[in-house]
């Protein structure tokens, strides 16, 4: 069976999955939407109280959570919309211009 990661615009149709089916879950994770950013959120861990209000508001599931703590952004998927900065009650997230966190 051909895997999603091995399918691209050069794959001949004979090698594609029948019916265009996808057999693996969450293959979109392999797709980089981080290049879309024109603004980038920067996470300030010291100011974060881990209230988690930003997490459900992220349209791109780009705020990982582990053991009750939010971690730094998943920059491969963050599109830089800035909702997280807007909902953050603390100075823990700031947006900077451009596609890289600096």
């Amino acid at each position, binding site marked *: 069976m051909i895997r999603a990661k091995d399918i691209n615009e050069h794959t001949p149709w004979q090698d594609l999955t029948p019916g265009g089916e996808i057999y693996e879950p969450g293959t*979109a994770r392999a797709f980089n939407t981080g290049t879309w*950013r024109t603004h980038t959120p920067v996470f300030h861990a010291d100011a974060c109280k881990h209230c988690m209000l930003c997490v459900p508001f992220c*349209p791109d599931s780009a705020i990982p959570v582990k053991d009750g703590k939010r971690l730094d952004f998943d920059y491969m998927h963050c599109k830089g919309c*800035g909702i997280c900065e807007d909902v953050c009650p603390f100075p823990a997230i700031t947006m900077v211009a451009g596609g890289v966190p600096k």
Partner: protein
Amino acid sequence: MSKVYNLKREVEKPPRLTGGHRLCAGCGAGVVVAGVLRALNKEDRAVVVNATGCVEVSTFMYPYTAYTDSFIHSAFENAAATCSGVEAAYKALQRRGKVNGVVKFITFAGDGGTYDIGFQSLSGAMERGHDMVYVCYDNEAYMNTGIQRSSSTPRFARTTTSPVGSAGQGKPQNKKDITEIMVAHHIPYVAQTAPLGNFKDLHIKSHKAIYTEGPCFLNILSPCPRGWDYPASKLAEITRLAVETCVWPLFEVEEGIWRLSYIPKKKLPVEEFLRPQGRFRHMFLKGNEWMIETAQAYVDEKWERLLERTGA
């Protein structure tokens, strides 16, 4: 889910809508879909069905799926029929002992797929009593094809097919009340919610809809930065204003009993919701004051009726 909602515990679950989908930056629908799926118990599986729309074309582009659950493509007009068919097939296999485990059936459709094109199949599936949830992410126009008006677009809103100019001033008709139409189907659970604050309202209603046996319907406000013309970062603010002005009241109807989920301490004037959005910009021009007055009168009338219905 234990009885008390705990945001910290809920966000710890692995997301069932992953990153890497192609919805626009700041899209309300991504937040809504992820929020509804988060209400599934961790160990349960789901089959997600999508009507044609933004979410369908962005979350499932071959060979990429943003779902960790099973997903089935559908057309604009038959998402509810597809979902009800899968549910019926699953029940049949279950009776024969060929499948086991908890599987939930969830349809996501935009307002075009719900209010307009998919309406007949939605009505049919609800009437037949399938054990499924139909979720409308309501962004109030056909955003996927370039912002054409739907029967969910509110009055005066500018879209590409209800433009503002010398011949017209946005959409001339009011929004269809689909939630009330679904209540009239006498199904076990109908609710209206929005992505707000700590997501308690959206989460609890989603969980109730998913785990109530029989057909359930959720209408969830899903602001669209492109179509509504506001800065992408303002999702939370726009939704909050929709609720605080009573433009989008939060309520649920369980076994025919209406219940208001939230009453604003101070009902804000409808202008507060309209002003930040470009699609209503012409309403603030000199000479168009009557539009705001008309919009306010409409919201007040609907709100009064809802208060009466819910006995609040």
